[in-house]
């Protein structure tokens, strides 16, 4: 599970480089997210634009990553591809996260 991270003044962008967050890598993803978000800005944008598929394990791991950051910090999601977006809609998790269609859109909105 490869994540790439970029930190700006007010926010950190974590981009998932793999095409899948599924049961085979959910734990690994959770651990990698923990090390990318344990310190740093309160606002983290998870860039999912390269992810074509998540299953319920992957969804659970993203929820766990947000919980792990604590209530005073925020995890926003950006660049959801069609099937990923569908999983968030069906489970109503799209009401729990701030979801942005694109990373650029998320940054434009969140930098203000």
């Amino acid at each position, binding site marked *: 599970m490869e994540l790439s991270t970029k930190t700006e003044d007010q926010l950190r962008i974590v981009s998932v480089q793999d095409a899948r967050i599924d049961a085979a890598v959910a734990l690994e993803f959770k651990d990698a997210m923990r090390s990318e978000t344990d310190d740093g800005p309160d606002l983290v944008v998870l860039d999912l634009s390269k992810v074509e598929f998540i299953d*319920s394990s992957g969804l659970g791991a993203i929820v766990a990553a947000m*919980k792990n950051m604590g209530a005073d910090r925020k995890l926003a999601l950006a660049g959801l591809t069609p099937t990923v977006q569908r999983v968030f809609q*069906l489970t109503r998790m799209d009401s*729990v996260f701030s979801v942005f269609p694109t990373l650029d859109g998320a940054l434009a909105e969140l930098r203000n």
Partner: protein
Amino acid sequence: MAAEILPPFEVSIMSSEMAVREALSRFLSALGPIGLDVEESGTIELVLAEVLNNIVEHAYPEGSPSGPIDIRCVHKKDGLHVSITDAGLAMPDGQLPLGNQVSVDVDLGDLPEGGFGWFLIQDLAKDVHYARNATQNRLTLRLPVGIIM
């Protein structure tokens, strides 16, 4: 919408998380000729991933040997009729989980990290049935994709 009926096919794996990926990829490749759109292939991949992950996790739990999982697909006018069999542990109480929607209207710390799998299966698949015989679990379901009008 499909133009013609695909011949029946089967995908078999030995249970493991990585083998689930392989099974999904082979299953979707076999459906190539009916030209599914992104939503249809997403439905298939999601439902099958949840079913197969459940088998890997619960029917052949860690510490016990892995075992066979067979997926058979028969394409009919009303969609894909899929049966998934394994020789692992039975479902608790010999019954399908209800697959209720998980409540997300809770505090951050109480947000569920699991329990979505059966909801997704029941929401996206039709006619979901489970049967246990002496040694096998058999789950049958219909995916309303590739429908012929």
